[in-house]
């Protein structure tokens, strides 16, 4: 089964909604972690580790530091998964 963008987005949305206690519908690809979700580096690392565990990808420290939006996080996962 091919993993689609919508699948990864749903995973990210589900994680953030649970951990940050925000409504899922408030989270879109354009949502910014810091400005819109009040998330800090700790929140971001928890998301990164969740994605690493779920999809078997590896996000480096440098890559993690460049993730600014929800869409960025989805991009990093999809870029490492063969189409």
């Amino acid at each position: 089964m091919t993993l689609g963008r919508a699948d990864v987005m749903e995973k990210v949305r589900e994680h953030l909604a649970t951990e940050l206690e925000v409504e899922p519908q408030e989270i879109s690809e354009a949502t910014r972690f810091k400005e819109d979700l009040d998330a800090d580096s700790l929140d971001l690392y928890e998301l990164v580790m969740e994605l690493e565990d779920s999809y078997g990808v590896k996000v480096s420290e440098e890559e993690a530091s460049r993730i600014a939006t929800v869409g960025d996080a989805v991009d990093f996962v999809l870029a490492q998964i063969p189409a």
Partner: protein
Amino acid sequence: MTTVALDGRGADRGPEVIVAGARAAAADGISLRVFGDPAQLTALDGAAGIEVVPAAGEISNDDEPVAAVRGVADASIVLAAADVAAGRSDALASAGPTGATMTAALFALRRLHGVRRPALAVQLAVPAREGPPTLLLDVGANTDVRPSDLVQFAYLGSAFSQAVLGVQRPRVVLLSVGEESKKGTAGVVEANRALVESDGIDFRGNVEGRDLLAGSADVIVTDGFTGNVALKTIEGTAKTVSAAIGAAARSNPLAAAGGLLLRPALGGVRRRMDPDTTGGAILLGLRGVAVVGHGSSGAAGIANAVRLAARSAEQRAVERTTELLENAGATRSAMRDRQEPE
């Protein structure tokens, strides 16, 4: 039986103190899984209640904690923390590097739902009396905090004091530069105002640094920068004053005689003030128990760190913290909603 995952590496005084500390804790009926180099832990072979789990990797004080914890998958502290997360152990204890221990615990055990920042708490013995110690938090996990973080620390500390230290109604105070509610940084003043209106805890207002060891409070709340400076100041002052008293007591025969007469009475104070007695700090606000022992722990310190971890698990410290936070409306979302009324 409660099982504690013990980091078998990283103690400043070597594996010998880990071995002796593990044996002492096991003698109390605590089950241990010790993660480390089996060759260094052969003295634990066949010890009742103790299982040595091989862990080839090690993280040192020189390593950057986040990169090391994410990069050294077989490090003893990483495997020990994962053991608790997987439910094979009930609590974590380590006397290894503080940063790596906190990071491994944070990543494996995760934050409690509704907690923005976990806090590192230490037990301060009150020199003038027996009885439960005063809990000081945060002592270094967060150098920059928001007023809402301080409010959450108050709940984390109160729940721990009640559950593990046995204080029925912990008196909670905020560390500042004056007892008046308007004294302090803007963040402290705002936290004071929020705490006055908080439910479920017994907030008694501000205290000053001179009150840290007075025993007038059960939980003292501050940010990690101030808390760390305060803690190190206490430790340094105690050491310096203790050395000066010792020197004075040896300065002439009459003083020496007086010192000898006082020694038995001072023994109890010394024991209470010994960092090994409390077993170290505890990282509060996680979904599991994590005790961060002193790097310089002796065998007694290791054993007491394991005992503190076991007691915290047995007393359901995590569950009781969750209940208190939720019942009092002190979760991250509840406080955010109060700050941003629609």
